[in-house]
């Protein structure tokens, strides 16, 4: 098991290390971490801190993808969650009150849970394709967020709320600690219980799982619910960072980056075996790449080109595997030696 996980993580991990090395050579201060007032600062710390929203979203996306699904609505859920939290804080008499902030965050997360559950309902009960089912909320979600904020960018000045994204606890950025907490919590839920392996079974072979008595409907549903809650938390962190709820900009394109992070981490979009550690590395690669691009003086708006190249390289590199899955769809099936599995499939189908 360890050997497999290792080999799956070798490529993403070396890509990350390479990126860090290149950065360090180009600007030695990249690797430097300074301590000020017992708090850590530096480029690497910034990467860890800034990656929090993407980390949260990508963790949820990993679970959804493991079930052979996809969740396009995470960005919209982030927007709604941020809008809910800020509207509550803004509407309360005392924005600086810790209790107010806690209530706001909890309500935002509950709303996100409901939205995630809605996606799960469409996918697992109504049997709608995941891309389509989550597209509905992706479209409508931002509208809901705008309604909540009344069409404005709600800004607040709340010390406890800002702390979520910018504060420090035991020398580390609080946002990074949230990431760590989420990684640990999800790992425990998935790997300490049987949820992870049942999720993989459903993602790899839904029919065999059904015949083995697995409650696939509930498992798929739970994946979308988890993804919703994590996206909601990401929305809170994002809103805290800019001290505002921006329904249009919050989580824009994050679903795409999250999917990219999951794929970079070695989890196949065809579902099944997932690696949370891989996703964590994938997120860090994306964040480091982003920081590298900025350092190179490339305007951040142009960074999508680099990501496009990364996506193409990754999918083409993976394609020999994808290709074997799709061999029978190819024209010259006979010419290319297909793996036994496909042959047998074809045999059974005819």
């Amino acid at each position, binding site marked *: 098991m360890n050997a497999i996980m290792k080999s799956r993580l070798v490529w993403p991990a070396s890509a990350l290390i390479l990126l860090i090395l290149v950065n360090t050579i180009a600007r030695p201060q990249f690797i430097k971490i300074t301590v000020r007032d017992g708090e850590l600062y530096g480029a690497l710390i910034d990467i860890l801190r800034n990656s929090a929203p993407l980390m949260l979203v990508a963790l949820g996306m990993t679970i959804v993808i493991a079930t052979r699904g996809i969740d396009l609505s995470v960005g919209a859920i982030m927007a709604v969650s941020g809008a809910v939290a800020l509207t509550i804080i803004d509407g309360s008499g005392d924005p600086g009150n810790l209790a107010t902030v806690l209530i706001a965050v909890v309500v935002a997360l509950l709303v996100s849970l409901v939205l995630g559950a809605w996606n799960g309902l469409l996918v697992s009960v109504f049997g709608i394709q995941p891309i389509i089912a989550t597209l509905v909320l992706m479209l409508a979600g931002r509208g809901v967020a705008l309604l909540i904020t009344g069409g404005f960018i709600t800004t607040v000045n709340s010390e406890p709320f800002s702390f979520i994204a910018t504060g420090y606890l035991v020398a580390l950025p609080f946002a990074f600690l949230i990431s760590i907490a989420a990684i640990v919590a999800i790992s425990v839920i998935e790997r300490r219980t049987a949820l992870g392996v049942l999720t993989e079974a459903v993602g790899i072979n839904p029919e065999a799982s059904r015949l083995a008595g697995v409650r696939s409907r509930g498992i798929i549903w739970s994946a979308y619910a988890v993804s919703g809650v994590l996206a909601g938390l990401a929305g809170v962190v994002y809103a805290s960072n800019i001290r505002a709820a921006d329904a249009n900009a919050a989580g824009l394109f994050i679903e795409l980056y999250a999917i990219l992070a999951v794929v970079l981490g070695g989890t196949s979009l065809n579902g099944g075996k997932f690696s949370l550690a891989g996703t964590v590395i994938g997120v860090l690669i994306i964040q480091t790449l982003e920081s590298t691009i900025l350092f190179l003086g490339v305007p951040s*708006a*142009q960074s999508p080109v680099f990501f496009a190249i990364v996506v193409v390289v990754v999918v083409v590199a993976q394609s020999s595997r994808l290709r074997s899955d799709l061999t*029978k769809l190819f024209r010259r099936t006979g010419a290319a030696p297909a793996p036994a599995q496909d042959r047998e499939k074809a045999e059974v189908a005819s």
Partner: protein
Amino acid sequence: MTATTLDRPVRTQEKPSMLKTFLSRNGSMMPTFAAILILILLFAGAEAFLRGDFITPRNISALLLDNAYLLVLAVGMTFVILTGGIDLSVGSVMAFTGILGARMLAEGAPVAVTVPTMLLGGAAIGLLIGILVQYFGVQPFIASLAGLFLGRGLAYIVSLSSIKVEEPAILWLQSTRMSFGGWYITPTGIIALSAVAIAAFVLHLTRFGRTIYAVGGNEQSARLMGLKVGRVKIAAYTISGFCAGLAGLILTAYSGAGYPRNGIGTELDAIAAVVIGGTLLIGGRGYVLGSMVGVFVYGTIKTIISFMGAEQSWMQIIVGALLLLFIVVQRAIVARSDGRR
């Protein structure tokens, strides 16, 4: 065996009723009819609510012109969705070709070079997506996601800010108004309508078009029937990219400028319009004229909202709700036709 021997008349049909014949021939048109019905209801409702101020030649003409770029995108998207794929790149490709054209013109390139470059630039990104999908077996979603990133990034590389277009030939496309009574149309509107007409011709009256439907209906069957599946799929994405290039031209003419932030999320509007127009996302069923109706439904909702002075956020919610409604309707249709077999 005698128990199962049914003397069913499998061979001949007794003169079926008109309705039955119609349904057996045109069952797949039902979602499109539903879209037309919704459009009529929207018109009627707006007309009643605004006491006759809504259905005016001016408003209807504006509906076409304001949404001409979306109509062209929806035409291209229809090809891709009919094959059972999806193209997320169109919004950013439109932005890219738009800003590219504006930059080229600002640098003094002649129109005769600029416009073909815009169109071919869009088609090239579409071709890239098609090749990824067909030869590398990448899921359309991911392949076109790469196209989305690429288009958006390239747009910003061309220019980080908006570039005004002074070229009279481009501005002519939007500024020329041909009026008939209260009605009017501009060359951009004519281009958009021509795109619909050409697409309708290709999809319904050429072998290529019918192969698109066959591929979307059942790719495996299409291959076993000896059709050129790979070529047709790549062509569909290339057409969508070309249409995105054309939409970039229209939008540049419409706004008199290229802007790299154009069209963020427009791919979703185009997909929504196509689906609302009755094209099934699983492919194989739908009409490009339906997509036009879908764009008009979309445009009408937008107009009504701005007439009512309501918040634009309702737009997204209503479109999302309509999308959900149509997906549910489509699932019911698919489930019924599967059940019948």
